[in-house]
């Protein structure tokens, strides 16, 4: 339905305070949502990193910041290693890589490491977002 709550809860989850009011009113700069609401009425859906089995961003990464975790299968991104070259953006078929507020590094979905269910999924009022593990 295109409410955008996925983006709101993603921002909150990646904020310092983890509180929606504080994250929106007080945190400067406000974190970037890792999930993106794509709309072209009547179509709307949320898109975030698919953690591809054969992830083009991992192969293309110039700095070694983007890695495929052998155990979890997650595509992880190390902001300390990232050189902000945007090569991952060039090769992501989903446009799921975003530029951080700093403009110096990228950010992308980390499936809310630490949470059982990612914030966008847990807070989707319509049950449109689900998180399933697919065997490659």
């Amino acid at each position, binding site marked *: 339905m295109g409410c955008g709550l996925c983006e709101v809860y993603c921002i909150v989850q990646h904020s310092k305070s983890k509180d929606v009011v504080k994250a929106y009113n007080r945190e400067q700069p406000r974190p970037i949502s890792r999930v993106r609401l794509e709309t072209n009425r009547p179509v709307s859906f949320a898109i975030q990193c698919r953690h591809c089995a054969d992830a083009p961003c991992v192969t293309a990464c110039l700095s*070694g910041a983007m890695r495929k975790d052998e155990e979890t299968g997650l595509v992880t991104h190390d902001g300390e290693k990232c050189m902000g070259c945007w090569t991952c953006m060039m090769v992501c078929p989903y446009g799921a890589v975003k530029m951080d507020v700093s403009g110096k590094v990228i950010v992308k979905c980390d499936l809310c490491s630490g949470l059982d269910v990612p914030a966008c999924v847990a807070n989707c009022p319509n049950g449109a977002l689900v998180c399933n593990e697919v065997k490659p």
Partner: protein
Amino acid sequence: MSKYVIVGASAAGIGAVEAIREVDPVGAITVISEELCPQYSRPMISDFVSGKASLEKMKCRDDRFWEKNEVQALTGRTAVRLNLADRYVELDGGQRVDFEKLLLATGGKPFIPKIEGGDKEGVFTFTKFSDAERLATRIESAKRAVVIGAGLIGVSVAEALAKRGLEVTIVEFKDKILSLILDPAASEVVESVIRKAGVTIFTSQTVHRILGKPGDDGVVGGAVLTNGDQVSCDLVIIAIGVVPRVELVAGTDVKTNRGIIVDRFMRTSVADVYASGDVAEAYDFIFNENRLLALWPLAMWEGRIAGYNMAGKKTDYPGGTSMSALKYFDVPVISVGIANPKEDVAYEILVKHDPEGGVYKKLVLRDDVVVGMIFVNDIERAGIVFHLMKNCVNVKKFKQELISENFSLATLPSRLRKKMGLGS
């Protein structure tokens, strides 16, 4: 005897090691590298010079990479000869390394034209860490630098030196900077931010003589351009391009053009000998022929393909193409494929230019398939277009949407989204 021997341990070598280990956890791997610590990102050497990245940050794999993958890493060693009949590589000092499967990932070396005075102290090339390290030691005592060549390497080293406070002059032979990957409009956007940062750019010029310092002719003191103008400088960086390091295969049966010719499995013309990375001429899916493309992401990918095939998992390379993401002076640019076609007849060109917002988007189409693109500033969804290019998707019905500011995955026809695994 090593089952796998890899000459070169930058992107292609690293990619091959990882792919081999996915398939074959035990087969002995030996890697030969001239560098002592080869597992760093070569595209980051300019960040080292600018002070943005330490060697530690530049390491694209950690220090235990070779050990964890049970690789015998012969670092600081040079492969000097191949004996393909008896299947061994000869190292400096005469040591023999026997192989069953060989990967040549020797990369490229800077092309250095003959310039009078080119042997003076203070003349540099800029492709590997040791170049950056040597250049960095000279920065404190230098005030002015001349960079010859405004390609990817030239512009990135110019940016790094400007950020360290040097007065930098770029001298480019063509009439536009980055002319191999950008069209005139995009080139001008980048040129204007570079000029704003205080860098001087001379186009349609080259350096034809390097002068010595008054009183010390052995040390760089200036450069004379083809039009006779003279620029004083303490450093000259030659960044005209790289050429494949094919010297190891000279005199062997390995077929070369400018680089080593490989098939879709990264095999050379000699059985059990593979090549990948900047030394190889591999398939380009836009040109539908083999081309030299000295690009890190492709080297890593080609190395992976070689590794799989060497280890017995038959994997074909769908092909790469010219693809560059730029970040010069914080202006993000993505250029892929035929971004600046010379004859316009066969191509349809769609452009959206918003000079105020700094956004420039250009698509080059051939028979309603995207074969080239340039995105400036608004680049986050460029990968979606790249995906359409790679898959030769006919975009006739929605081509105008692709450069619109509202373009998103939701704009694509639902059948395409379904193919991508999106939507129910």
